[in-house]
């Protein structure tokens, strides 16, 4: 009786957990691991951003979204906002698309701070471009280093690619790439803000299924969970003896 009650309670907790991750289809624990890895990376990235800007930087609680691919532009609702984006793909076995997106104005402000120019209007395009590329290099670099240090997975980014266009036009390229693999996409996203609200950067990551598996497996090894985790145990009503055995094993 008490065993059953506990199990029902646990199921409830797990369902709450699912809501927090804004994820409905994926395994709760696996998503939790990815989210945790992302949070570690985002913390380091925020620190380095703060060092570049010499300002206090706030980060939003990182989120993992599990979207139907075509719903993403609707979710961000930034259709024609001019955006500066830096695309840094990961190469070799850990294939992954990383995007750092800033509104153009904000990108220019950051570039001005980085190059110590008094006003963003005085900067020419090549200078802005290389400043923002450098920013992405530093941010994504520290993000990946943190994850790589933790999980011992080799993550090698390709050189950054700069692009300035409207939000939808940039993002649909990546959505198409995701859509060719599956009709759902797992998107990790976090938001960096300076105190005065000058910079508002979105770091968006589309991990490939292979990289997801690799990171989850390595993290589980680290935590000592070697067996695949089963979040919900379906219990037949008349088999209480078996339940005790099962719960003991999992504990």
């Amino acid at each position: 009786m008490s065993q059953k009650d506990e199990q029902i309670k646990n199921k409830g907790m797990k369902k709450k957990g699912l809501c927090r991750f804004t994820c409905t289809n994926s395994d709760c624990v696996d998503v939790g691991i990815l989210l945790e890895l992302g949070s570690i990376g985002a913390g380091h990235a925020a620190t380095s951003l703060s060092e570049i800007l010499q300002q206090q930087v706030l980060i939003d609680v990182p989120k993992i979204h599990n979207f139907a691919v075509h719903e993403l532009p609707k979710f961000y609702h930034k259709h024609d906002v001019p955006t500066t984006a830096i695309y840094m793909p990961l190469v070799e076995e850990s294939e992954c698309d990383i995007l750092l997106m800033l509104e153009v104005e904000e990108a220019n402000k950051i570039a001005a701070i980085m190059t110590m120019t008094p006003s963003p209007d005085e900067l020419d395009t090549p200078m802005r471009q290389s400043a923002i590329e450098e920013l992405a290099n530093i941010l994504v670099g520290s993000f990946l280093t943190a994850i790589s240090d933790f999980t011992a997975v080799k993550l090698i980014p390709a050189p950054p690619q700069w692009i300035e266009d409207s939000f939808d036009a940039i993002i649909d390229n990546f959505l198409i790439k995701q859509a060719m693999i599956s009709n759902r996409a797992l998107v990790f996203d976090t938001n960096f803000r300076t105190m005065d609200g000058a910079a508002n950067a979105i770091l968006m990551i589309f991990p490939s299924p292979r990289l997801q598996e690799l990171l989850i497996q390595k993290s589980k090894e680290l935590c000592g969970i070697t067996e695949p985790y089963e979040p919900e145990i379906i219990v037949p009503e008349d088999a209480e003896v078996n339940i005790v055995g099962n719960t003991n094993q999992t504990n």
Partner: protein
Amino acid sequence: MLNSLPRIPLIRFWNNHQKSTMLNTTIGACIQFETMPCITTAAQTSPTVEEVRVDMAGMKVESKPVELVTSVGSCVAICLHDSTNKCGGLAHIMLPDSSIFPRENLPFKFADTAVPALAKAVRKISGKEAMLFAKIAGGANMFPNVRNDGLSVGEKNVEAVKTELANCKVKLLGEDVGGSYGRRISFNVNTGIATIRCYKGAVKRI
């Protein structure tokens, strides 16, 4: 639903830039710096015409005189116009071929299913069999430096749309495809004119 939300970010952005663009603005035409982003709001283009946004993998058909708006990069926007009955529709497709996901229940995601479905929808609201004309835009390769094997997705999309239009016997009147920049398409269903604005400020009417 989403279209009815206020467009605060766009308008705010425009206001911030208004001072600098005022210098280059003449009556009736807006000439902008090369680096100045060309973002248009409904108020700037034509205040009397309502704009309806079409989402990714979505479709809208209208018989009222509105502008159907969508933004594409590597995706392709297909505009179908029925000039006799003054109605039309716009579909925003993502991928060329639906055979890789046979169970997907989104006909407007794929070029080969979107064109017949759009033609059917336009004919349904007009109520009569009439000649349809098509205009397409998009199919850009946003990152030309990234290594591609063979054709890019944008090019494949455009090719698939053209073949499917030929299969459905819809005449292609105009196109603005390729390149490495995003496009904002506003398609007037009354006149059948599609206005394409690219980010750098160039405007093209087809």
